């Protein structure tokens, strides 16, 4: 009997067979494991610092999804460029479903159209929608005008308090003033509650933003009032405020100008993986505890399947594309 590497040939053949079998079993197991999504932790990116609305909502949802999927859904904050860093990270990521991100839409579309960075939103894998923030127009309580037509005709012309000439508030302000015929006199640079301090000091009159958190507390107090909500249904937390549709401007209602927390996956993510993630996300969003916790922070849950999410993004793209010249013109006018 021949001896190969010190092992008799028969035994060597057996050894080779066993090793081959082990390799095959390993490959099979690995293939099975790959098919069984998920089998390791999922990273959920948030393009903002910890503590904001989208971050808190992400943590609440990720917690429930972890229970459902049997793996940890880990929230990771990668702030930068008003959420663009997270979009970049996902748009270049591996299409395996292990990296997803909550993104603020349609603001990311505006940012991409104004300053292209090569992100193709049509190729993104859309998992669904985590939260929605409805915008409202608010002012100081003693501001004498209440409707778009009164404000448009007011003398002196109203000034618009803004954080800057980018972001979703700027998009809303641009489209709203254009559609409602309100003169464009922006005063920029206000952060958070500074807007309300500016309004009380008489530096600017109008402001639009999500009616949530401390803004919600303020508009329910004696110093401020909500003029209208950019929606076609009354906002539960500010029931006395009319909707913009009620005031005859449905074109900027119907949640057109809401801030959507969409959940995206890298381009090319297989449909079955998107569906698993979407089912888990929507299951979490249907949990009464989650709904209550999100609601308490001035946001709402509005469930979408991957197909519906994709269609919603298409719709947002249309609105932004239609208005991008207005946004550009308003930016130039402000400068």
């Amino acid at each position, binding site marked *: 009997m021949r001896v190969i590497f010190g092992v008799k040939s028969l035994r060597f053949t057996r050894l080779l067979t066993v090793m081959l079998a082990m390799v095959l079993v390993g490959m099979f197991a690995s293939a099975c494991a790959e098919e069984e999504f998920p089998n390791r932790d999922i990273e959920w990116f948030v393009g903002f*610092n*910890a*503590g*904001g609305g989208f971050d808190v909502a992400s943590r609440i949802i990720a917690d429930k999804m972890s229970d459902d999927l049997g793996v940890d859904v880990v929230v*990771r*904050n*990668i*702030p*930068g*460029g*008003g959420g*663009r*860093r997270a979009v*970049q990270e996902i748009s270049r990521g591996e299409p395996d479903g292990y990296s997803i991100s909550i993104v603020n839409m349609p603001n990311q579309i505006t940012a991409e159209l104004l*300053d292209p960075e090569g992100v193709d939103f049509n190729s993104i894998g859309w998992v669904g929608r985590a939260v929605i923030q409805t915008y409202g127009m608010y002012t100081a309580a003693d501001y004498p005008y209440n409707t778009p037509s009164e404000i448009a005709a007011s003398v002196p012309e109203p*000034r618009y308090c803004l954080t*800057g*000439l*980018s*972001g979703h508030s*700027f998009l809303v302000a641009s489209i709203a003033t254009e559609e409602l015929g309100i003169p464009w*006199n*922006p*005063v*920029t*640079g*206000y*952060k*958070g*509650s*500074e807007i*309300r*301090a*500016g309004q*009380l*000091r008489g*530096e*600017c009159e109008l402001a639009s933003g999500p009616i949530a958190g*401390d803004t919600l*507390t303020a508009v329910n107090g004696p110093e401020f009032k909500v003029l209208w909500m950019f929606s076609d249904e009354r906002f539960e937390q500010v029931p006395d405020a009319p909707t913009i549709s009620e005031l005859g401007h449905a074109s900027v209602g119907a949640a057109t100008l809401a801030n959507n927390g969409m959940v995206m996956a890298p381009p090319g993510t297989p449909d079955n993986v998107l569906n698993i993630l979407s089912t888990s996300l929507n299951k979490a969003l249907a949990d009464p505890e989650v709904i209550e916790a999100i609601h308490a922070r001035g946001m709402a849950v509005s469930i979408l399947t991957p197909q519906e999410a994709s269609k919603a993004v298409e719709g947002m793209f249309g609105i932004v594309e239609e208005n991008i010249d207005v946004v550009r013109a308003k*930016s130039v006018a*402000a*400068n």
Partner: protein
Amino acid sequence: MFDALGLAIGQMFEPASIGAICLGMAVGVVFGIIPGLGSVIAMTLLLPFTFGWDPTLAMYVFAGIMGTASTGGAVPAILLNTPGTIANVCTTFDGYPMAQRGEGGRALGLAASASGLGTLFSILVLTALLPLAKLMLMAFGAPDIFWLIIVGLLAVTFASQQNMAKGLAAGGLGILIALIGFSPVFGELRFAFGSEYLWDGIEIVPLAVGFFALSELLVYTSRGGSIAQSRSTMEVGAKQLLSGAVEVFKYPGILLRGSIIGTVTGAIPGAGGAVANFLSYSSAKKASKTPELFGTGYAGGIVASEAANDAKDGGILLPTLTFGIPGNGEMVILMGAFVLHGIQPGRDLLVNRLDIVWAIILGVVAAQILTTIVILGAGGWLAKLSLVPVRYIAPFVAVLSFIGVYAVRSNIWDVMLAVMAAIIGFGLRKAGFPIITLVIGFVLGELAEKSFVQSLQISGGSYSVFYSRPVSIILIAIIIGTVGWSIYRALYPASAPQEAAE
């Protein structure tokens, strides 16, 4: 406002709050005692680690450090003739001679007691003024804020006690760094050079860690040895400590004057503890019937120095909490802590987050009382900390810096930025440029741009908005007066007061 005080006092006695204050106090005392480190480096190093904490607890830690570092700094000033912080320089004039006479314990007792009383005085003044802060906030519009920032920048430059041209250059460099990234008012990307990292501009945490902690470390490492270079008797008796603590009350005039000078100087951006320290010491000497005793181990000298450098704490908090205008390095880091914890100085803080305001005030007071007890109990033993060789301190501080910087955003470029800031900061220090002016320029640069553009937007483009409001006119007068006085001093240096430095 005072309802929130009751709640805050209740919260302060919770175990977690006591733990946070003790942590801040312990770090503050140790970093105060080791010369060159000080409160700014201590706060800078701890800042990233508080990420994710309850903001109130984080504020207790920072208040603990703020209230204690300059008290800790008196220990090596008295026992080793090496001031722990720059605000303890005048303490060496009388503290060290007293220690050489074998009365180190008495000097430590005087310093600890004067520090505690100075802090209490300034905090009482701050508490009395806080209800007015909201009125001030409503009275200060964008043009007034712009001029206030210019006053602050000028004050920081003039107070840098180094070459004024270098101070201005450092402040200008800070403003230029603040321009990087998306403009806060126009939304345009500036000086990003195609880098995604620079979209949001330069982050305060890596910049401050690099400029304050790491560059200081490079300076000490390049020198080697231990930070404190001299050694004297460190034996201090308990009897002496207690007699010193009580002896403070024999100098009520000096104590009150020092506390007032400290509080007022603290409220002026850029002036800070060091200026308060010199002003108080020189004015006490000037007003004394026995000025010849100053510098010979005189108890009044220690009281004047230590009451003022700790009384600055109450004053310096006022512009920071009300307008978000930081007056010194500690306040820059406190602003960084506000950003990290989503707190907006000004109206938001004074209306919605009074718990934070009271946490800072109570934290400073509690930490100061604890420090006074610790220094009285273990001052001599603690002084030995400043004899630890740099080669042991440097790696510890460096590793802590890098971990902290990375922890905030999980971005390795933040670590690179801290390293770059350290190298640039080291070069600037060697060339005599004041780092604090640069960092305050960085923080105030964005605010200045924002308030300038806002003012023009509010007025519809009319520049008259800058000189048509009473507050603006007063601030312009202060600016003209400050610049005029500095030109006068430059032209007639002989008539400028030099007593403090003598």
